[in-house]
């Protein structure tokens, strides 16, 4: 895998893409209806300590990726375990991404084409992007991030006449338990995958301050999530939006924008695909890096190019286990948030605690 520096802008939009891809696809609608914005805000609360831990890890072990950090703290065994666990985690996550975007492309643009074909072509694009290295990934995510924002702004501007403020009412009707459960699900889907940025931490440019980067991206992602939620809710109403597979695309399809109405749908589909390629490629790259650390010690030769085999397996899982059977797909979607939480939020904690203890001991000795 070609190494390269990841600029602040590239890393920023990479995190934002990781955060908002689930938002744009699913719209984050659940049982909370018009109160969904409360769940989105609640979901940001556990993300705050997570970001503090990630920033601290980057500050304690600068220039190291997560498996290298595990190697520093727990030796070669820690590196192998971290590499294997996160490799499997990211392969399954890539499969979930591929399944979601394959489903969208199949529904929106290519209904007569087999899912396997769409999935493999989508994977080829992602694999090509991965092989370009971190620098290419950063440039791509910055360009597509800006393009996504322009399309979103255009969509909101054209939907001015279709926005019905009454759809945002009534509020505060959902129970606290439902809101908390929704918040946890949204936290897993939007912030739980942030751990992938630790796999790019070794490629951060020298001028990047991790804390500033993480806080900025979290705030920006949160604002975007709220904008998408309020837009979908105001245009479609909470219950129609909750029943739609892809609410933002559905909202674009009902907007009456004269002769260019159909183009709005196409633009939204383009935005979905661009952000999907960024997110899937980033997850795939993280998985390939994790696996390569598991089979080869640090500092021995160039990192392995495991992108294609890992992606191929993820595509197979996406087509068969996640997308092939509606019942299995529903089951996977239900358990995906719980699956993300452990490696995404809990596993970096022992690493952080160990690094803090070691630093304290080193400080006492000197």
């Amino acid at each position, binding site marked *: 895998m070609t190494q390269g520096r990841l600029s602040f802008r590239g890393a920023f939009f990479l995190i934002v893409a990781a955060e908002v891809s689930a938002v744009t696809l699913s719209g984050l609608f659940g049982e909370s209806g018009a109160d969904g914005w409360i769940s989105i805000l609640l979901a940001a609360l556990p993300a705050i300590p997570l970001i503090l831990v990630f920033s601290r890890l980057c500050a304690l072990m600068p220039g190291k990726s997560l498996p290298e950090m595990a190697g520093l703290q727990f030796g070669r065994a820690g590196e192998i375990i971290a590499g294997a666990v996160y490799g499997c985690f990211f392969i399954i996550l890539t499969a979930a991404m591929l399944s979601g975007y394959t489903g969208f492309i199949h529904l929106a643009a290519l209904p007569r084409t*087999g899912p*396997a*074909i769409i999935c*493999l072509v989508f994977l*080829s694009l992602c694999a090509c992007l991965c092989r370009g290295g971190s620098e290419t990934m950063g440039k791509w995510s910055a360009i597509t991030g800006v393009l996504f924002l322009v399309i979103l702004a255009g969509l909101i501007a054209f939907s001015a006449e279709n926005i019905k403020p009454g759809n945002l009412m009534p509020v505060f009707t959902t129970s606290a338990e439902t809101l908390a459960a929704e918040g946890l699900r949204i936290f897993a889907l939007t912030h739980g995958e942030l751990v992938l940025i630790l796999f790019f931490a070794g490629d951060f440019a020298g001028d990047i301050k991790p804390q500033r980067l993480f806080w900025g991206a979290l705030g920006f992602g949160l604002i975007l999530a709220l904008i998408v939620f309020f837009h979908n809710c105001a245009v479609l109403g909470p219950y129609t939006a909750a029943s739609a597979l892809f609410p933002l695309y559905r909202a674009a399809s009902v907007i009456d924008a004269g002769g260019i109405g159909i183009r709005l749908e196409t633009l939204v589909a383009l935005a979905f695909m661009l952000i999907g390629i960024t997110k899937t490629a980033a997850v795939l790259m993280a998985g390939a890096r994790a*696996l*390569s650390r598991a*089979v*080869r010690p640090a500092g021995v*030769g160039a990192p*392995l*190019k*495991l992108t*294609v*085999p*890992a992606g*191929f*397996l*993820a*595509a*197979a*899982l996406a*087509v*068969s286990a996640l997308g*092939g059977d509606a019942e299995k797909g529903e089951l996977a979607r239900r358990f995906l948030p719980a699956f993300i939480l452990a490696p995404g939020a809990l596993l970096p904690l022992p690493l952080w605690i160990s690094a803090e203890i070691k630093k304290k001991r080193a400080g006492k000795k000197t």
Partner: protein
Amino acid sequence: MQEFVLTTVFFLAAVWFDLRPKWKAGRAPFFLSAVLTAAGYFILVKNIFF
């Protein structure tokens, strides 16, 4: 059938461009890649025909 042909083309491309150069890189990287690629191909083909 189209899906099978495309999957096989992708598999052969992966073998040629990805596995072939790894033969010289060492056993562990080659076998890991080979297992992942073969597993992916097997699951895809099984999904297409069964």
